[in-house]
């Protein structure tokens, strides 16, 4: 049995797929490629395939990670890449693959942070750079950023997302651009949309347009490790 880690980019309209859509897409593509998948035990066996972190609907991605098991360890990573890529729709691009030791923690268990880039969509007039920078400073100066969300058991819960924002910077590259490093993974995290929504509030003082309309969001990379000593999660390092 072989464990393979693969890296991929999600571009164009495929950013509108949900995590489950993407999982189904990979499963079907792998079966079309006739790769010897390993299935889980139990009543409802499914291929042992997982993605490192769910990608929010509407967010494109540069270097997402996934991993799976193959029954046959004679399939080289390059061969795996070629066979799978042929069965993927345009817009889903494999960057690379590497064999991985069968033991060890899953990718999903290692993810602790994610870096995003938001570029102004151009669908509405862009705010002046200074105004955006001021809003970023204002947001980051808040001692806490309270949000209400559905907690465990569906109950309304209040959380402070300020500690989850590790970095947030604004700049200009033809138009306004933001970069954010946010806590992510199984021990909690914050959606980039939520940060953009609060930023818009800090800027205009009102709820305003949906962040997905104002900004083109891209996830640049996933990280592992503790805040302060984060390392990019890659197939080589995982």
């Amino acid at each position: 049995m072989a464990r393979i880690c693969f890296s991929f980019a999600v571009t164009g309209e495929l950013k509108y797929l949900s995590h489950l859509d993407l999982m189904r897409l990979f499963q079907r593509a792998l079966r079309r490629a006739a790769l010897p998948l390993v299935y889980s035990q139990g009543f409802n066996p499914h291929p042992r395939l997982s993605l490192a972190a769910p990608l929010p609907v509407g967010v494109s991605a540069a270097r997402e990670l996934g991993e799976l098991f193959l029954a046959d360890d004679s399939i080289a990573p390059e061969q795996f890449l070629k066979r799978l890529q042929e069965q993927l729709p345009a817009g889903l691009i494999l960057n690379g693959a590497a064999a991985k030791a069968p033991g060890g923690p899953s990718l999903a268990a290692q993810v602790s942070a994610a870096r995003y880039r938001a570029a102004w969509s151009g669908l509405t007039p862009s705010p002046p750079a200074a105004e955006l920078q001021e809003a970023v400073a204002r947001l980051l100066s808040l001692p806490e950023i309270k949000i209400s969300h559905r907690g465990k058991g569906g109950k309304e819960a209040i959380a402070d997302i300020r500690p989850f924002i590790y970095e947030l910077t604004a700049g200009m590259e033809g138009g306004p651009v933001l970069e954010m490093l946010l806590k992510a993974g199984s021990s909690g995290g914050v959606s980039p949309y939520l940060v953009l929504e609060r930023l818009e509030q800090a800027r205009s003082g009102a709820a305003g347009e949906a962040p997905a309309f104002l900004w083109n969001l891209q996830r640049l990379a996933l990280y592992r490790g503790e805040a302060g000593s984060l390392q990019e999660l890659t197939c080589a390092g995982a």
Partner: protein
Amino acid sequence: MSLDKELQALLPRVQKPARYLGNEWNVVIKDHAQAAVRAVLAFPDLYEVGMSNLGLQILYAAVNSRPEMLLERAFAPAADMEALLRERGLPLFALESKKPLRDFDLLGFSLQYELSYTNVLNMLDLAQIPLYANARDERYPLVAAGGPCAFNPEPLAPFIDIFLLGDGEEALPELLAELIALRSRGAGRRGTLLALAALPGFYIPQFYRPLYRGGSFQGIERLESAAPPVVAKRTVPDLDGAVFPTAPIVPYLEVVHDRGVLELFRGCSRGCRFCQAGVIYRPVRRRSPETLQKLACETLQATGYDEVSLASLSSSDYPHIDALISDLSAAAGERVRFSLPSLRLDSFSVGLADRFHRGRRGSLTFAPEAGTERLRRVINKNISREDIFAAIGAAVAAGWQAFKLYFMIGLPTETHDDIEGIARLCRELLDHLRRAYGKKPRLTVSASVFVPKPHTPFQWEPQLPLGEVERRQRLLAQALKPLRGVGFNWHEAGASFLEAVFARGDRRLAPVLELAQRRGCRFDGWSEFFSLERWLSVFRELELDPADWAYRRYTHEEPLPWDHLAAGVPKAVLVREHRRALAEEAAENRFEGGQS
């Protein structure tokens, strides 16, 4: 900004943008400039419903396999997308090219369900195409419609240029080839329709005029000699030679039927007297095991599905179905599951379902349809109480833990005893299962409402009035209440009432549809959008009484609005079957067997 760009800007603002991408696996994208004829298949329901329809995939493959033709898809946009299109004045578009529907040569609607008619009009309206056929000139596409409801399409007649009766996989490419030829001869809109009227299976409603006297339908008059007195349906004689979509479009979204499909056969030999599908899909035509095996392998390879549904109106009737599934399973490998969409109520079918089942033995579904043997004789669903006990007993013994049982309320001759018979059957079944197997499975009784459908032996029967349907639903709920482990679901009676109105409707209902669309009726088949009150106010405003269509007992002698459309079973046979039903006699051979 181009329409494509405009739509890009809408996607971030709708709940499920993946409905509108049009770039799924196996999609066919053709250059409009290279195609001699351009058509759109419009499905008047959500993407998730339309993409579960086998007919859509068949037609898509049949047309797109021809290099000179192009067929794209359009679905009813969800409320959020509709609001954005209207707010910005954008026209409804085809998924593949994002071109406006009005720029195509032919727009063809799939009519699966009467309660999708307002969506048909709404899609025309969103496409910025005039609703009425006589208001459309050469600038607009021809508007066609086909599917089961085309066998009485009269409520939609003023809006549609061409109805297609029967199987579409040959007729639609033929229609498009005809359009290419007619255009090269310079035939205008009217000339085109006149030429099509002479071909079998094409019903051009504007060449016929209904006659009324004192508010009653008196028959239909032909206005053009090219239009035949009776339009025959199209049937593909041999399914082995017919097109089958082995590389169907694989949706990204989880659709209603999210799996591959193999159509084992078309038609049904059962002869249930309420069933319209059993008539309009005649005669029974099977695919051979060899063809099915080939189609299954190709489908799996081209889609990556891990489940294939073996579809037909009664799949366990396929000869040697057990051998077929064994062979298919052997060819497909252990990770592929073959499933049967509907199970006949007998031990053979249960054994079959059990043998090829994977995973937890959850729930099996059966349709006894009626609670007493007497009423089952009336509808010609000839299964006995003992058959039911034996079938479900076999399933319980094999470890199945839950059963769904489908019944109909309001069948002809139904009495309160037949309703109580449903509860009696459930109680006795549970007693039997406890005594014989020591098991207490969960039963879910699901009760729909009988709708008299054109071309069936029950087409003359009235629907039970709404109040009485609701009374019987309550009666059944009460009778089931003392039974532990029995759940009960029932259909919205108001929706079934409207279904009956439009199923037997005539052209006087067209203004009702038009006004209903303007008043906001959409997705009437979805209980969360359906409003009986809104519909009734539309009828009141037009001074029409929907009860005239749904509740009236039609006579065998009077002309029916669909008499000029031939589904395949002669009216005389339907009359005899109707009489035999009321006498609780079994069907004659001519009606059973799926031939005539």
